[in-house]
Protein backbone atom coordinates (compact mmCIF):
# COMPACT_ATOMS: atom_id res chain seq x y z
CA UNK A 1 0.00 0.00 0.00
CA UNK A 2 1.27 3.47 -0.81
CA UNK A 3 2.16 5.87 1.97
CA UNK A 4 -0.97 7.95 2.78
CA UNK A 5 1.17 10.86 4.07
CA UNK A 6 2.59 11.57 0.58
CA UNK A 7 -0.90 11.37 -0.91
CA UNK A 8 -2.33 13.70 1.75
CA UNK A 9 0.44 16.28 1.16
CA UNK A 10 0.04 16.13 -2.62
CA UNK A 11 -3.77 16.36 -2.49
CA UNK A 12 -3.73 19.16 0.11
CA UNK A 13 -1.17 21.26 -1.77
CA UNK A 14 -2.99 20.64 -5.06
CA UNK A 15 -6.33 21.80 -3.64
CA UNK A 16 -4.80 24.95 -2.10
CA UNK A 17 -3.06 25.87 -5.40
CA UNK A 18 -6.23 25.20 -7.41
CA UNK A 19 -8.47 27.22 -5.09
CA UNK A 20 -5.88 30.01 -4.92
CA UNK A 21 -6.08 30.25 -8.70
CA UNK A 22 -9.86 30.56 -8.87
CA UNK A 23 -10.76 32.33 -5.59
CA UNK A 24 -9.13 35.70 -4.95
CA UNK A 25 -8.94 35.24 -1.16
CA UNK A 26 -5.71 36.77 0.22
CA UNK A 27 -4.77 33.79 2.39
CA UNK A 28 -5.23 31.31 -0.48
CA UNK A 29 -3.49 33.52 -3.05
CA UNK A 30 -0.48 34.07 -0.74
CA UNK A 31 -0.28 30.37 0.10
CA UNK A 32 -0.45 29.52 -3.60
CA UNK A 33 2.41 31.91 -4.40
CA UNK A 34 4.59 30.47 -1.60
CA UNK A 35 3.89 26.87 -2.65
CA UNK A 36 4.66 27.64 -6.29
CA UNK A 37 7.95 29.28 -5.25
CA UNK A 38 8.88 26.13 -3.33
CA UNK A 39 7.94 24.04 -6.35
CA UNK A 40 10.16 26.22 -8.58
CA UNK A 41 13.12 25.64 -6.24
CA UNK A 42 12.45 21.90 -6.19
CA UNK A 43 12.28 21.76 -9.99
CA UNK A 44 15.65 23.57 -10.17
CA UNK A 45 17.13 21.02 -7.74
CA UNK A 46 15.63 18.24 -9.88
CA UNK A 47 17.47 19.70 -12.86
CA UNK A 48 20.76 19.33 -10.95
CA UNK A 49 19.83 15.75 -10.05
CA UNK A 50 19.09 15.19 -13.75
CA UNK A 51 22.56 16.38 -14.72
CA UNK A 52 24.11 14.10 -12.08
CA UNK A 53 22.01 11.18 -13.42
CA UNK A 54 23.19 11.86 -16.96
CA UNK A 55 26.80 11.94 -15.71
CA UNK A 56 26.49 8.68 -13.72
CA UNK A 57 24.82 6.78 -16.59
CA UNK A 58 27.53 7.78 -19.06
CA UNK A 59 30.31 7.24 -16.50
CA UNK A 60 29.11 3.65 -16.04
CA UNK A 61 28.84 3.18 -19.80
CA UNK A 62 32.32 4.50 -20.40
CA UNK A 63 33.75 2.33 -17.62
CA UNK A 64 32.06 -0.84 -18.92
CA UNK A 65 33.27 -2.50 -22.06
CA UNK A 66 30.33 -1.41 -24.18
CA UNK A 67 30.00 -0.39 -27.78
CA UNK A 68 29.71 3.37 -28.32
CA UNK A 69 31.67 4.03 -25.11
CA UNK A 70 33.54 6.70 -27.04
CA UNK A 71 30.30 8.73 -27.25
CA UNK A 72 29.93 8.53 -23.45
CA UNK A 73 33.55 9.57 -22.88
CA UNK A 74 33.05 12.49 -25.26
CA UNK A 75 29.89 13.53 -23.39
CA UNK A 76 31.63 13.34 -20.00
CA UNK A 77 34.59 15.42 -21.18
CA UNK A 78 32.32 18.03 -22.81
CA UNK A 79 30.08 18.20 -19.75
CA UNK A 80 33.04 18.63 -17.38
CA UNK A 81 34.65 21.36 -19.49
CA UNK A 82 31.33 23.23 -19.86
CA UNK A 83 30.59 22.99 -16.13
CA UNK A 84 34.08 24.18 -15.21
CA UNK A 85 34.07 27.10 -17.67
CA UNK A 86 30.52 28.27 -16.87
CA UNK A 87 30.99 27.63 -13.15
CA UNK A 88 34.32 29.44 -12.89
CA UNK A 89 33.79 32.38 -15.26
CA UNK A 90 29.99 32.64 -15.07
CA UNK A 91 27.37 31.90 -17.75
CA UNK A 92 27.66 35.30 -19.48
CA UNK A 93 31.46 35.36 -19.77
CA UNK A 94 32.80 35.32 -23.39
CA UNK A 95 34.33 31.83 -22.83
CA UNK A 96 30.96 30.39 -21.77
CA UNK A 97 29.19 32.19 -24.62
CA UNK A 98 31.81 30.85 -27.05
CA UNK A 99 30.90 27.28 -26.08
CA UNK A 100 27.22 28.12 -26.49
CA UNK A 101 27.51 30.02 -29.78
CA UNK A 102 30.17 27.94 -31.53
CA UNK A 103 29.44 24.43 -30.26
CA UNK A 104 25.92 24.01 -28.94
CA UNK A 105 24.02 26.18 -31.44
CA UNK A 106 25.77 24.73 -34.54
CA UNK A 107 25.15 21.16 -33.30
CA UNK A 108 21.46 21.87 -32.70
CA UNK A 109 21.20 23.65 -36.06
CA UNK A 110 22.72 20.57 -37.72
CA UNK A 111 20.11 18.38 -36.03
CA UNK A 112 17.40 20.73 -37.34
CA UNK A 113 18.83 20.32 -40.83
CA UNK A 114 18.73 16.52 -40.44
CA UNK A 115 15.16 16.91 -39.23
CA UNK A 116 14.15 18.41 -42.58
CA UNK A 117 15.43 15.36 -44.42
CA UNK A 118 13.84 13.02 -41.88
CA UNK A 119 10.45 14.72 -42.31
CA UNK A 120 10.56 14.53 -46.12
CA UNK A 121 11.47 10.85 -45.89
CA UNK A 122 8.69 10.33 -43.31
CA UNK A 123 6.17 11.92 -45.68
CA UNK A 124 7.09 9.45 -48.42
CA UNK A 125 7.04 6.55 -45.97
CA UNK A 126 3.63 7.65 -44.68
CA UNK A 127 2.17 7.40 -48.18
CA UNK A 128 3.51 3.86 -48.45
CA UNK A 129 2.43 2.82 -44.94
CA UNK A 130 -1.07 4.33 -44.87
CA UNK A 131 -2.19 4.98 -48.43
CA UNK A 132 -5.60 6.48 -47.59
CA UNK A 133 -7.49 9.73 -48.18
CA UNK A 134 -6.43 11.25 -44.85
CA UNK A 135 -2.75 10.74 -45.69
CA UNK A 136 -3.17 12.27 -49.15
CA UNK A 137 -4.95 15.33 -47.69
CA UNK A 138 -2.19 15.65 -45.04
CA UNK A 139 0.65 15.48 -47.57
CA UNK A 140 -1.15 17.74 -50.09
CA UNK A 141 -1.79 20.38 -47.42
CA UNK A 142 1.84 20.28 -46.30
CA UNK A 143 3.02 20.67 -49.93
CA UNK A 144 0.66 23.62 -50.62
CA UNK A 145 1.68 25.44 -47.43
CA UNK A 146 5.38 24.81 -48.20
CA UNK A 147 5.03 25.99 -51.80
CA UNK A 148 3.47 29.27 -50.75
CA UNK A 149 5.65 29.86 -47.67
CA UNK A 150 8.80 30.58 -49.66
CA UNK A 151 9.63 32.38 -52.92
CA UNK A 152 8.88 30.27 -56.00
CA UNK A 153 11.40 31.83 -58.42
CA UNK A 154 8.99 34.73 -58.99
CA UNK A 155 6.31 32.39 -60.34
CA UNK A 156 2.81 33.24 -59.19
CA UNK A 157 0.36 30.35 -59.49
CA UNK A 158 -3.12 31.88 -59.54
CA UNK A 159 -5.33 30.92 -56.63
CA UNK A 160 -2.59 29.10 -54.68
CA UNK A 161 -1.88 32.02 -52.37
CA UNK A 162 -5.62 32.40 -51.58
CA UNK A 163 -5.84 28.63 -51.01
CA UNK A 164 -2.96 28.79 -48.53
CA UNK A 165 -4.62 31.66 -46.63
CA UNK A 166 -7.93 29.78 -46.58
CA UNK A 167 -6.27 26.58 -45.32
CA UNK A 168 -4.46 28.56 -42.63
CA UNK A 169 -7.56 30.42 -41.52
CA UNK A 170 -10.35 27.83 -41.77
CA UNK A 171 -9.57 24.05 -41.70
CA UNK A 172 -6.19 24.35 -39.93
CA UNK A 173 -7.56 26.59 -37.16
CA UNK A 174 -10.71 24.46 -36.80
CA UNK A 175 -8.68 21.25 -36.57
CA UNK A 176 -6.19 22.77 -34.14
CA UNK A 177 -8.99 24.04 -31.90
CA UNK A 178 -10.66 20.63 -31.93
CA UNK A 179 -7.41 18.93 -30.93
CA UNK A 180 -6.68 21.55 -28.26
CA UNK A 181 -10.15 21.11 -26.75
CA UNK A 182 -9.47 17.38 -26.49
CA UNK A 183 -6.04 18.04 -24.99
CA UNK A 184 -7.47 20.49 -22.44
CA UNK A 185 -10.09 17.93 -21.38
CA UNK A 186 -7.29 15.39 -20.94
CA UNK A 187 -5.20 17.81 -18.90
CA UNK A 188 -8.07 18.57 -16.50
CA UNK A 189 -8.87 14.85 -16.17
CA UNK A 190 -5.22 13.99 -15.43
CA UNK A 191 -5.01 16.82 -12.87
CA UNK A 192 -8.23 15.78 -11.13
CA UNK A 193 -7.10 12.14 -10.94
CA UNK A 194 -4.01 13.33 -9.05
CA UNK A 195 -6.09 15.60 -6.79
CA UNK A 196 -8.36 12.63 -6.01
CA UNK A 197 -5.34 10.47 -5.20
CA UNK A 198 -6.29 7.97 -7.92
CA UNK A 199 -3.08 8.64 -9.82
CA UNK A 200 0.07 8.96 -7.73
CA UNK A 201 3.10 9.70 -9.87
CA UNK A 202 5.00 10.82 -6.78
CA UNK A 203 5.42 7.18 -5.64
CA UNK A 204 6.08 6.56 -1.98
CA UNK A 205 5.30 2.91 -1.44
Amino acid sequence: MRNPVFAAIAIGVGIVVLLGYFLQIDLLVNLRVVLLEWATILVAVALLVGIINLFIVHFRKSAADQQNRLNSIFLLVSMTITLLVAGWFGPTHPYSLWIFNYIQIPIEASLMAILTVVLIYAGVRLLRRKPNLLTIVFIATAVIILLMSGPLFGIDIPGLSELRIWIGKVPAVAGARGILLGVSLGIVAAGLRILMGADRPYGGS
Partner: protein
Amino acid sequence: MNGLNILGLIYVLIFFGLILGTSIFLRTREGRRLRDIPAFDRLGRAIGLAVEAGSRLHISLGRGHMLSTQSAVGFVGLSILGRIARSTSISDRPPVSTSGEGSLGILSQDTQRDAAKYLGVESDPTRGRITGLTPYSYAAGTLSFIQEEDIGANLLIGSFGNEVALITDAAERTDGMTLGGTDNLTGQAVMFATAQEPLIGEETYAGGAYLDAGPMHVASLYAQDILRWIIIGLILIGAILKLLGVL
Protein backbone atom coordinates in the same frame (compact mmCIF):
# COMPACT_ATOMS: atom_id res chain seq x y z
CA MET B 1 -14.34 38.11 -7.86
CA ASN B 2 -13.84 37.55 -11.57
CA GLY B 3 -16.83 35.91 -13.31
CA LEU B 4 -14.50 33.86 -15.53
CA ASN B 5 -12.75 32.43 -12.47
CA ILE B 6 -16.07 31.33 -10.99
CA LEU B 7 -17.02 29.75 -14.33
CA GLY B 8 -13.68 27.92 -14.35
CA LEU B 9 -14.21 26.63 -10.82
CA ILE B 10 -17.73 25.45 -11.73
CA TYR B 11 -16.29 23.62 -14.77
CA VAL B 12 -13.70 21.86 -12.59
CA LEU B 13 -16.35 20.93 -10.01
CA ILE B 14 -18.65 19.52 -12.75
CA PHE B 15 -15.73 17.49 -14.12
CA PHE B 16 -14.92 16.26 -10.61
CA GLY B 17 -18.57 15.30 -10.02
CA LEU B 18 -18.74 13.51 -13.37
CA ILE B 19 -15.63 11.43 -12.62
CA LEU B 20 -16.97 10.48 -9.18
CA GLY B 21 -20.46 9.75 -10.52
CA THR B 22 -19.14 7.67 -13.40
CA SER B 23 -16.83 5.67 -11.14
CA ILE B 24 -19.78 4.83 -8.84
CA PHE B 25 -21.96 3.96 -11.84
CA LEU B 26 -19.25 1.75 -13.38
CA ARG B 27 -18.79 -0.14 -10.11
CA THR B 28 -22.35 -1.41 -10.32
CA ARG B 29 -22.01 -2.51 -13.97
CA GLU B 30 -20.08 -5.47 -15.24
CA GLY B 31 -17.79 -5.11 -18.25
CA ARG B 32 -16.59 -1.67 -19.27
CA ARG B 33 -16.84 -0.83 -22.92
CA LEU B 34 -14.27 1.57 -24.31
CA ARG B 35 -14.29 2.76 -27.89
CA ASP B 36 -11.69 1.14 -30.11
CA ILE B 37 -8.34 2.89 -30.40
CA PRO B 38 -6.27 0.64 -32.73
CA ALA B 39 -3.00 2.02 -31.32
CA PHE B 40 -3.70 0.56 -27.88
CA ASP B 41 -4.76 -2.82 -29.33
CA ARG B 42 -1.44 -2.95 -31.14
CA LEU B 43 0.40 -1.84 -28.02
CA GLY B 44 -1.07 -4.76 -26.05
CA ARG B 45 0.21 -7.17 -28.71
CA ALA B 46 3.59 -5.43 -28.83
CA ILE B 47 4.00 -5.76 -25.05
CA GLY B 48 3.28 -9.51 -25.28
CA LEU B 49 5.70 -9.93 -28.19
CA ALA B 50 8.45 -7.98 -26.41
CA VAL B 51 8.10 -10.15 -23.30
CA GLU B 52 8.23 -13.35 -25.41
CA ALA B 53 11.17 -12.17 -27.51
CA GLY B 54 13.10 -10.90 -24.50
CA SER B 55 13.41 -7.41 -25.95
CA ARG B 56 12.96 -4.18 -24.02
CA LEU B 57 10.08 -1.72 -24.02
CA HIS B 58 11.10 1.89 -24.12
CA ILE B 59 8.86 4.63 -22.73
CA SER B 60 9.89 8.14 -23.67
CA LEU B 61 8.33 10.70 -21.32
CA GLY B 62 9.28 13.85 -23.20
CA ARG B 63 10.46 17.07 -21.62
CA GLY B 64 7.31 18.54 -20.12
CA HIS B 65 8.00 21.08 -17.40
CA MET B 66 6.48 20.11 -14.07
CA LEU B 67 5.15 23.62 -13.37
CA SER B 68 3.22 23.95 -16.62
CA THR B 69 0.27 22.28 -18.33
CA GLN B 70 2.81 19.97 -20.02
CA SER B 71 3.11 18.08 -16.73
CA ALA B 72 -0.30 16.38 -17.30
CA VAL B 73 0.86 14.41 -20.32
CA GLY B 74 4.05 13.54 -18.42
CA PHE B 75 1.92 12.11 -15.59
CA VAL B 76 -0.03 10.04 -18.13
CA GLY B 77 3.30 8.70 -19.41
CA LEU B 78 4.30 7.83 -15.84
CA SER B 79 1.01 5.96 -15.28
CA ILE B 80 1.64 3.94 -18.44
CA LEU B 81 5.24 3.30 -17.39
CA GLY B 82 4.09 2.03 -13.98
CA ARG B 83 1.45 -0.20 -15.55
CA ILE B 84 3.84 -1.66 -18.13
CA ALA B 85 6.60 -2.17 -15.55
CA ARG B 86 4.17 -4.26 -13.51
CA SER B 87 2.69 -6.18 -16.45
CA THR B 88 6.05 -7.22 -17.88
CA SER B 89 7.01 -8.95 -14.63
CA ILE B 90 7.83 -12.23 -16.37
CA SER B 91 10.26 -10.53 -18.74
CA ASP B 92 13.96 -10.73 -17.88
CA ARG B 93 14.42 -7.31 -19.49
CA PRO B 94 12.32 -4.71 -17.66
CA PRO B 95 11.18 -1.56 -19.48
CA VAL B 96 13.37 1.51 -19.60
CA SER B 97 12.31 5.13 -19.68
CA THR B 98 13.96 8.27 -20.98
CA SER B 99 13.06 11.86 -20.20
CA GLY B 100 14.33 15.34 -20.94
CA GLU B 101 13.42 17.05 -17.69
CA GLY B 102 14.97 16.62 -14.24
CA SER B 103 11.81 16.11 -12.16
CA LEU B 104 10.27 13.77 -14.76
CA GLY B 105 13.46 11.72 -14.62
CA ILE B 106 13.26 11.43 -10.84
CA LEU B 107 9.57 10.50 -10.98
CA SER B 108 10.25 7.84 -13.63
CA GLN B 109 12.94 6.27 -11.41
CA ASP B 110 10.49 6.36 -8.50
CA THR B 111 7.79 4.71 -10.63
CA GLN B 112 10.22 1.95 -11.69
CA ARG B 113 11.31 1.49 -8.08
CA ASP B 114 7.67 1.15 -6.99
CA ALA B 115 7.03 -1.45 -9.68
CA ALA B 116 10.16 -3.40 -8.70
CA LYS B 117 9.09 -3.33 -5.05
CA TYR B 118 5.62 -4.54 -6.03
CA LEU B 119 7.17 -7.44 -7.96
CA GLY B 120 9.72 -8.17 -5.25
CA VAL B 121 12.74 -7.66 -7.51
CA GLU B 122 15.73 -5.37 -7.30
CA SER B 123 15.40 -1.95 -8.87
CA ASP B 124 18.03 -0.34 -11.06
CA PRO B 125 17.87 3.50 -10.97
CA THR B 126 19.54 3.75 -14.41
CA ARG B 127 16.37 2.33 -16.01
CA GLY B 128 14.90 5.81 -15.66
CA ARG B 129 17.34 7.89 -17.67
CA ILE B 130 17.59 11.57 -18.43
CA THR B 131 19.06 11.68 -21.91
CA GLY B 132 19.32 15.43 -22.46
CA LEU B 133 17.97 18.68 -21.10
CA THR B 134 17.30 20.70 -24.25
CA PRO B 135 14.91 19.53 -27.02
CA TYR B 136 17.61 18.48 -29.47
CA SER B 137 20.05 17.08 -26.92
CA TYR B 138 17.17 15.01 -25.55
CA ALA B 139 16.34 13.72 -29.04
CA ALA B 140 20.01 12.99 -29.78
CA GLY B 141 20.47 11.16 -26.45
CA THR B 142 17.29 9.14 -26.90
CA LEU B 143 17.98 8.09 -30.48
CA SER B 144 21.44 6.81 -29.59
CA PHE B 145 19.84 4.98 -26.65
CA ILE B 146 17.30 3.30 -28.98
CA GLN B 147 20.09 2.21 -31.30
CA GLU B 148 22.21 0.72 -28.49
CA GLU B 149 19.49 -1.21 -26.64
CA ASP B 150 17.47 -4.10 -28.06
CA ILE B 151 14.15 -2.23 -28.08
CA GLY B 152 11.01 -4.14 -29.11
CA ALA B 153 8.52 -1.27 -28.88
CA ASN B 154 8.77 2.46 -28.27
CA LEU B 155 6.07 4.45 -26.51
CA LEU B 156 6.46 8.18 -26.78
CA ILE B 157 3.97 9.68 -24.32
CA GLY B 158 4.90 13.14 -23.15
CA SER B 159 5.53 16.66 -24.30
CA PHE B 160 7.47 16.68 -27.59
CA GLY B 161 8.03 19.23 -30.32
CA ASN B 162 9.20 18.62 -33.88
CA GLU B 163 12.44 17.03 -32.59
CA VAL B 164 10.39 13.87 -31.96
CA ALA B 165 10.86 12.98 -35.66
CA LEU B 166 14.51 12.14 -34.91
CA ILE B 167 13.40 9.71 -32.19
CA THR B 168 10.66 8.05 -34.26
CA ASP B 169 13.05 7.72 -37.20
CA ALA B 170 15.59 5.92 -34.99
CA ALA B 171 12.80 3.66 -33.69
CA GLU B 172 11.66 2.87 -37.22
CA ARG B 173 15.19 1.79 -38.16
CA THR B 174 15.24 -0.77 -35.34
CA ASP B 175 11.98 -2.31 -36.67
CA GLY B 176 10.29 -1.71 -33.33
CA MET B 177 6.70 -0.60 -33.01
CA THR B 178 6.28 3.12 -32.32
CA LEU B 179 3.28 4.60 -30.54
CA GLY B 180 3.29 8.33 -29.97
CA GLY B 181 1.13 10.93 -28.29
CA THR B 182 1.84 14.47 -27.20
CA ASP B 183 0.07 17.64 -26.07
CA ASN B 184 1.97 19.80 -28.55
CA LEU B 185 0.24 20.59 -31.88
CA THR B 186 3.46 20.59 -33.92
CA GLY B 187 4.53 17.39 -32.21
CA GLN B 188 1.19 15.76 -33.07
CA ALA B 189 1.51 16.67 -36.75
CA VAL B 190 5.06 15.28 -36.82
CA MET B 191 3.98 12.11 -35.02
CA PHE B 192 1.10 11.61 -37.45
CA ALA B 193 3.68 11.47 -40.23
CA THR B 194 6.42 9.54 -38.48
CA ALA B 195 4.96 7.23 -35.79
CA GLN B 196 3.41 3.91 -36.70
CA GLU B 197 0.56 4.45 -34.23
CA PRO B 198 -0.07 8.15 -33.57
CA LEU B 199 -2.48 9.26 -30.85
CA ILE B 200 -4.46 12.40 -31.62
CA GLY B 201 -5.77 14.92 -29.08
CA GLU B 202 -7.34 13.39 -26.00
CA GLU B 203 -6.43 9.82 -27.07
CA THR B 204 -3.01 10.45 -25.51
CA TYR B 205 -4.63 10.91 -22.11
CA ALA B 206 -6.66 7.68 -22.43
CA GLY B 207 -3.62 5.38 -22.13
CA GLY B 208 -4.19 4.56 -18.46
CA ALA B 209 -7.77 3.43 -19.10
CA TYR B 210 -6.77 1.14 -21.97
CA LEU B 211 -3.88 -0.39 -20.02
CA ASP B 212 -6.01 -1.05 -16.90
CA ALA B 213 -4.13 1.46 -14.73
CA GLY B 214 -7.18 1.75 -12.46
CA PRO B 215 -10.97 2.28 -12.43
CA MET B 216 -10.56 6.05 -12.05
CA HIS B 217 -8.78 6.19 -15.41
CA VAL B 218 -11.83 4.59 -17.05
CA ALA B 219 -14.21 6.86 -15.12
CA SER B 220 -12.28 9.99 -16.13
CA LEU B 221 -12.32 8.84 -19.76
CA TYR B 222 -16.11 8.53 -19.66
CA ALA B 223 -16.34 11.96 -17.99
CA GLN B 224 -14.11 13.40 -20.74
CA ASP B 225 -16.40 11.92 -23.40
CA ILE B 226 -19.54 13.33 -21.74
CA LEU B 227 -17.99 16.79 -21.43
CA ARG B 228 -16.77 16.65 -25.02
CA TRP B 229 -20.32 16.08 -26.27
CA ILE B 230 -21.54 18.95 -24.08
CA ILE B 231 -18.85 21.24 -25.55
CA ILE B 232 -19.72 20.10 -29.12
CA GLY B 233 -23.39 20.89 -28.40
CA LEU B 234 -22.53 24.33 -27.01
CA ILE B 235 -20.32 25.12 -30.04
CA LEU B 236 -23.12 24.10 -32.43
CA ILE B 237 -25.72 26.15 -30.52
CA GLY B 238 -23.33 29.11 -30.54
CA ALA B 239 -22.74 28.77 -34.29
CA ILE B 240 -26.50 28.57 -35.01
CA LEU B 241 -27.23 31.60 -32.81
CA LYS B 242 -24.45 33.51 -34.58
CA LEU B 243 -25.90 32.55 -37.97
CA LEU B 244 -29.34 33.73 -36.85
CA GLY B 245 -27.82 37.00 -35.67
CA VAL B 246 -28.82 36.48 -32.03
CA LEU B 247 -25.19 36.61 -30.77
